[in-house]
């Protein structure tokens, strides 16, 4: 007997989605941008002959190809060290993707588990865990990451740990809310009556129904993580040079806005576009899967 509620039932109960069942309502703009980012990140070495870290001082600060002094060899110009900007953008995409993916999986995963436990078990455990969530949410993200960067040293590992430690709390709180709502449903009581163990109920009955929310949270926070990473790199406490990171690239160009505007501009545009795409995609996903999350 099927005791796991069909996921599509959840969708149909919201009035919004009754008029939007067609697949052609996809947010194509966002999807294209995200796909492009993943594509260039994965295939970066194949897409460009230049190296992102090798310096070439005679070629420093060349403008983009369409301006005076630019060459098609460096389509978006070069930076202070003569490195091709477009190449660095591609490799920077890798950094952003890797950091975001790892952080979201770690922080989100932990948040999911804790939210599940907290919501299902309830009682004292719930109280304690939610206090921890409140305390964590009270901490400003960038400040915390900066603190960790100073004490644990810069780099990928520190960054991932820092942001995961902030992220779990956000996930845990929302997941817990979902779990509480699902717990009240009849099919859970039915499962208990039939003798299912607590563990089984959590994994087989509650978890699949929480996955919708979890996926929405993942996409909604992708932009957040990318901006945090970029801000930290901009401040010099994120991914250390020479590894290209978009935030760091913006910082490099900062001193030369008047003479070499392209060094800061293109990375900034990249960040904005990508975050925009993820936010819009996340909004669409939320509207389709779980409109209750609207207030997020």
């Amino acid at each position: 007997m099927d005791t796991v509620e069909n996921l599509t039932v959840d969708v149909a109960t919201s009035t919004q989605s009754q008029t939007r069942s067609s697949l052609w309502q996809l947010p194509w703009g966002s999807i294209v941008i995200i796909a492009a980012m993943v594509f260039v990140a994965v295939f970066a070495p194949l897409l460009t002959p230049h190296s992102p870290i090798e310096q070439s001082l005679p070629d420093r600060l060349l403008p983009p190809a369409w301006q005076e002094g630019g060459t098609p060899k460096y389509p978006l110009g070069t930076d202070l060290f003569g490195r091709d900007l477009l190449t660095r953008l591609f490799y920077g995409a890798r950094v952003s993707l890797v950091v975001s993916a790892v952080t979201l999986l770690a922080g989100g995963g932990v948040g999911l588990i804790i939210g599940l436990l907290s919501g299902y078990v309830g009682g004292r455990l719930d109280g304690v865990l939610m206090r921890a969530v409140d305390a964590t949410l009270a901490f400003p993200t960038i400040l915390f990451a900066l603190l960790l960067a100073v004490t644990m040293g810069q780099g990928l590992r520190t960054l991932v740990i820092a942001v995961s430690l902030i992220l779990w709390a956000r996930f845990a709180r929302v997941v817990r809310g979902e779990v509480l709502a699902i717990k009240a449903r009849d099919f859970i009581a039915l499962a208990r009556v039939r003798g299912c163990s607590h563990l089984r109920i959590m994994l087989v009955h509650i978890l699949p129904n929480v996955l919708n929310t979890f996926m929405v949270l993942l996409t909604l926070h992708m932009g957040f993580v990318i901006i945090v990473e970029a801000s930290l790199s901009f401040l010099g406490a994120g991914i250390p040079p020479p590894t290209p990171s978009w935030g760091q690239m913006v910082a490099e160009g900062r001193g030369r806005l008047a003479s070499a505007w392209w060094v800061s501009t293109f990375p900034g545009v990249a960040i904005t576009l990508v975050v925009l795409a993820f936010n819009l995609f996340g909004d669409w996903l939320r509207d389709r899967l779980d409109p209750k999350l609207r207030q997020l």
Partner: protein
Amino acid sequence: MQRYILHRFLQGVVLLFCVAIIVFALGRLTGNPVDLMLPEDATPEDREHLLRALGLDRPYYEQLYLFLAGAVRGDLGLSIRYRQPAVDLFFERLPNTLKLVPMAVGIAVLMSIPLGVLSAVYRGSIIDRLAGILAVLGIATPNFWLGIGLIYIFSVQLGLLPSARMGGPEHYILPAATLGTFAVAGMMRLVRSSMLDVMDSEFVKLARIKGLSELVVIWKHCLRNAMIPVLSLFGVFVALLVTGAIVTETVFAWPGIGRLTYEAVIFRDYPLLQAVILLDAVIVLAVNLVIDILYAYVDPRIRYA
């Protein structure tokens, strides 16, 4: 009501305590904080000397006690770089940030409320669409890039506004705009959705049946009730502004606590960083407490929960 206030206040104190412990622990996490403080060519004797001077050779619980005792008394250690008490440095710079943040908040509120209300009332119209785009872009654009972009347009190209440092009123415009944008985007959406919810409720229909003009209905009755969730988001935004200020102040070389934090980070001035984080937490918690009390005052449903 008093019970609620007391409860929240105690919660705040506990949270502050936790923050202090976390900050304390982090410094000792990867070896001694002394290692963070000494220059590379320090001799072992120098290290020993500093250890004893800072009381770091004592057992952990004693250290924690000393740290907390000092904190309560207002002594949070000396900044390595400035050789001044960290607390003094903080309060020296705090007014500068306090001059900037309210302006940013003011801009945010002044822009987001009308835009939010109009978006809700003329839902689906061009105003709604444009405001929506502005909101979405505002959230996606990184703080620092917006600041740099504004500097480029208004300082470099147009030469209209100064690009850095404090000064006359024109120095405030760009940093406040940069800080405020993020808040505008988020708040506007919330005002809009909150208004939409309220506009459907029964008492609004009653107000209209009563014969009240649409203006009064919208601006007096709807808005008041719609503001309740916005108020709670306000607390979140103040915390965000404290953090956002780090980046904005760095971009505009604004001598506030954000910039102080940044300096503490790049110069690895751990005592200063520790102090700044603790004091930041105090501010954030205090503001949240005030907001929660206001919230309970405005919405009687909360008081009796």
